[in-house]
Each structure stands twice: as C-alpha cells, then as structure tokens.
C-alpha cells in the first residue's frame, strides 16, 4: 500500500495538496461544462424541432410558409391536423404589447416601492417589506394564475360592466396585463432596491447640503444615479412578462386571431399558444409549438438587446 502511493507520487511528481487543487479545478470545470451544455442542448433541440415544420412536408400537409407564419393574423386557417397554414404575426404583436403595458404598471409601482424601502421607510418596516417582496417573488406562477382567474377576472368583468362594456368573462388584455404586472413587481422592486441602496451616500449628502429637500434628493439624485440598475430590473421584469405561460393562459382567453389591442378584448401570447393543447396534440400541430418557441426566444433576445442599448444610452452616475 505504502509502496503504491509512493509510486503514484513519483509518477505525478506533485504533492497531495497540489493534486487536490487539480481535482477541485476539474470538478469546477465539469460543472461549468454541464450548465453551459444544457443551454446549448436545449437551443439545439428546440431549433431542430422548430425548423422541421418549415423544411419537411409534415406527413403530406405541406411545408409551413415562413413568411405567412411570421405575418399571419390567424393562428390556424383550416382544420387542425389537416392544414399547415399557421400564423403567429398577431401573437408577436400581442405579446410585446402586453409586456410593455405590464411594464408601464409594474415599473412605477416597483421603483417607488423600492425607493420607499431603501430610503423612506423606518428600518423595521423596510425589513418587513423586503421580506414580503422576497416572498412574492417566490410564489409559483400557477398561484398567480389561480388568483388571476379567481379574483382579477371577476374584478375586470365587473368593472367592464360598470363602464358599460360586455367583456368575455373578464378574459382580456387588461386582466393579463394586471397578472403579469403583479408577477414582475417583486423582481423589479428587489433589483431596483439594491440599485438604490448602492447609490453613494456622498452624492445624497451633497444634494442635501446644497439645500435640496429629501423628496427632491430622492427623485432627482438618488433615482437618477440608480437608473442603470433600475433599467436592469426592467429588463428582468420584461423577461418574466414575455416568458410567463401558465398564469397568462388562465386569464387571456386564448384568441386565435388578432391582434388584440383593445383593453377588454381577449388575447393570446406566444407562451400561452405554445402551452394550449400541448399535452393532447400530435404531429405538425405539436411541432409548430417549437417553432413558436424559436420566435419567442428571438423576441426575448431582441427586447433585451434594445433595452440594454437604451440602458447604455441613459448611462449611469457613480454607483458603488
């Protein structure tokens, strides 16, 4: 035994500690490889599945026309399982429209909540609120969906009735937007709060010393300095809004044509369209959902690039 160990040491020519180092480095490398390759495998898998409808003849149904697919105003013209006339143009518009509207609601509320937690609230309240925000972000999306279909749909339906509009059971753009705002709120609040807290104390004190009031300082100095971080929160918030499927499909009404721009119209998003009937369907009707997945990934990528570009444009003041 002693001899074998000795032998190994001589071959490797390194001490035990050095060997452990090499081993640990190897483990790190392998974990990095696993996580990176999973993403690549997923992308390859979705791309292969999603491109199939455009290049194969889909068991006699014919190729899906990519131009028609990207600009179509009807999800499927003709009968399912016997037609290849799919279109997602209107769904792309719906998805982006809904994500932007929900950002318009969740951004102001989220950023102001973050400002309140970080700067205004007394310590104990701010700790309490921070915990609440963290709890909210941990709630699974199906719970938001059930809340949406049980409470928000009723509220929207009743509200529409009050203003004299007959909504379709509350299933609407506005219900979807409200649910998505609720869902992206914790993300936006948590990240904005970190950004606001990391604004240098000296900038704030400088503003106060120049005679600005606390409110002026908070809005004109603190928020302005943290805008880069706040934009980062917006990017993640939009990501959540674009990628949510379960909750959306419970309140959107899943329209099959569009686009739906009216607040009380039923709507559909790329994710809700992918999810609907997924467990029951086969053949082209199944494969086409992967094509929708590719479109969704491209939409998310483009939105992130645009928001990152804006974020760079607005720049940032010294943030520690």
């Amino acid at each position, binding site marked *: 035994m002693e001899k074998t160990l000795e032998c190994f040491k001589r071959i490797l020519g390194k001490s035990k500690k050095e060997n452990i180092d090499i081993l640990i480095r190897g483990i790190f490398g392998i974990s990095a490889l696993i996580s990176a390759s999973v993403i690549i495998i997923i992308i390859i898998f979705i791309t292969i599945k999603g491109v199939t409808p455009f290049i194969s003849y889909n068991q006699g149904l014919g190729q899906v026309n990519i131009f028609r697919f990207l600009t179509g105003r009807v999800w*499927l013209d003709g*009968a*399912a399982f016997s037609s290849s006339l799919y279109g997602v143009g209107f769904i792309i518009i719906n998805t982006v429209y809904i994500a932007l509207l929900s950002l318009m609601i969740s951004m102001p509320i989220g950023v102001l909540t973050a400002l309140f937690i970080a700067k205004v609230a007394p310590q104990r309240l701010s700790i309490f609120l921070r915990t609440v925000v963290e709890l909210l972000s941990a709630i699974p999306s199906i719970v938001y969906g059930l809340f949406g*279909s049980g409470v928000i749909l009723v*509220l929207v*339906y009743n509200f529409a009735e009050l203003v004299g509009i007959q909504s379709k*059971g509350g299933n609407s753009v506005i219900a979807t937007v409200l649910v998505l705002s609720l869902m992206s709120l914790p993300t936006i609040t948590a990240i904005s709060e970190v950004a606001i807290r990391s604004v240098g104390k000296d900038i704030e004190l400088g503003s106060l010393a120049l005679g600005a009031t606390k409110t002026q300082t908070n809005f004109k100095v603190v928020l302005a300095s943290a805008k880069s971080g706040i934009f980062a929160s917006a990017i993640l918030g939009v990501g959540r809004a674009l990628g949510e499927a379960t909750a959306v499909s419970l309140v959107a009404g*899943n329209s099959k044509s569009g686009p739906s721009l009216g607040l009380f119209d039923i709507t559909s998003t790329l994710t809700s369209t992918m999810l609907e009937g997924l467990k029951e369907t086969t053949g082209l009707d199944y494969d086409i959902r992967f094509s929708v997945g590719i479109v969704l990934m491209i939409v998310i990528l483009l939105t992130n690039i645009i928001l990152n570009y804006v974020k760079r444009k607005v720049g940032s003041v010294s943030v520690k």
Partner: protein
Amino acid sequence: MRKIIIIGLTLISALYLVGCDNNQLDTSFDATKSITVYTRDTSSGTRTGFMNGIGFGDAAEDNSLLVSGFVTKDNTGILTAMKNDEYGIGFISLASLNNTVKGLAFNGVEPTIANVINNTYSLKRPFNYVIRADGDYGSLDKENLTKAFIAFLGTIDGSDIINDKGAIPLSATGTWDDIKAEHNVCLKDNSNIVIKFGGSDSIEKIAKALSSAFAPKCGGFIAEHDHTGSSDGFKRTQGSEKDSDNAKDVGFASRDFKDTEIGDIGTQGQLAWDAIVAIVNNRNTLNAITQESLKSIYDGTYKVWEDINQ
C-alpha cells in the same frame, strides 16, 4: 406608519365594497346582450364529441368555422368562467358538472347520469370495445386474459376507474373479487404475456388506467397501448389489419360501430358513455336548448341571447 395602515384599510374596504355591489346589483338577465362563446381547444376529445353531437362535426378541428371572438379554455377553465360570465355559454364533460353553473337540458332531456344510462340524453357518445375473434389470439392464455379484462370492465372496480377519468360507466354488478374465481388465468404468472390495446385516442387515458389497475390483479401481464383513432379499433382486431404488425388484442372506438364493423358474437360491447353538457351562468333564464340552437350559437348565426327561441 399609522397613515399607511389607514390608507391600506381604506383601499381594501373599497375593493370589498366594489365586489359586494356587483354581487347585489344587476341580478336580472339582459337577453339583448351578446353571447360569449367558450370552447375547448381543437385537440380536445370533448370538443369532438360536442361538435358531432350538435351536428357541427366540421368545427371539431377547425376554428375558422366558429363564430369570431370565441374564448378557448380547458374543462375547468370553462366551468369557472361560467360561474362569472353571465352571458357565456360553454360545454364540459357531464362528470364535472356541479351546481355553480347551470347545465342545459338538451333536446328536452335533463343532463343527468340516469338519463345518460337510460339512453334518453343524446349529447353523448359511446365508448365501445372490440376484441379478437375466439381462437385468434395465438395462445389460449392470451385469449383468457383478454376476456378476463373485458369481465373486469363490468365490475365495480372497473367502473370506479372509468368514473375517475371523467366518463360514465354502464351499471356495474359485483366486484372483481366476486368473479375472479371464473378466471383461472389470473392465478398464473403472466409477466411474459403482452396484451396490445389500440383504437380511439379519446379512450386512451381510460384504457391505460384500466390496464395498469388490472395487470397486478391478473398475473402482471404487460399492457402495450397504441391508440391511433376509432377506425383502427375494429380494423386491427378483426378487420383488414388483424394479422399485420399493428394487430391488437383489444380495440376501442369512441362511436358506434359501423355496419362494416360487426364482428363475431360476444366480441364487441360498450364500457362507458362520454356525456357532454352545455352550461351557462346560473342567472341565465335559459334552461333548455336544442341541437339546432347550439349549432347556431357556435357558428355565429345567433349573436344575442334573445335570438334563441325558448
């Protein structure tokens, strides 16, 4: 701090009041309002059953034939939507009907399980089975096993499973324990026998649940499910493909067998009904509907509630 609490409480009570008001106001049903049409997705078997039942079979898999602006939801989604939407109409499987919504009588017959079993309620389709002809199984054990499975369908154990999966079983007599003595094959070790199931994909869930519950009771045979559609049910057990690679031991059809699909005596039968019910909000004044009216609602001929001749 106190201010915040006060503001919070005011907001909550305001919301509560809004909710309350609307529950008490507007209890009357306004028949001049438009009908909101709810449907299942094109991949749904319930939708196929419903559309065929109202004489609108073309719309089973084709959304473009439906009235524009229809809402697509799943079974539970339609049920919960109808609690809320006074002017909606949808359809669900009869097994999930409860008193939070109003199930409409179809062509004058109330949607009850009793009316389904006595064959008066007609918005339904049968779930049928067909097995191979006697002596055509390749082995006697396999034949006896298949027949034991069919016997199991008629027991309380079997009908509980069918019920569980949302269909309405025919009236069952006795449990498996009562009749298992008649099926000696189940005492053997059958783990090397493969029984092939096929036919209707609407029955796939029920068939899988039945075979996985029955296999441990009968020597642990292996169940192979390959459900491709009702027309393959007869074709692959006694029809043109009965000796092909696709051959099955048990086939299912979610419709009546056609005249060309009549097999040997005692090889065909029914295991359940799949009944569907049109539902509306409890405040809706409508209590019954005809096949023609339902079709006119789903194809967009009738736009508002007063269009329907009650």
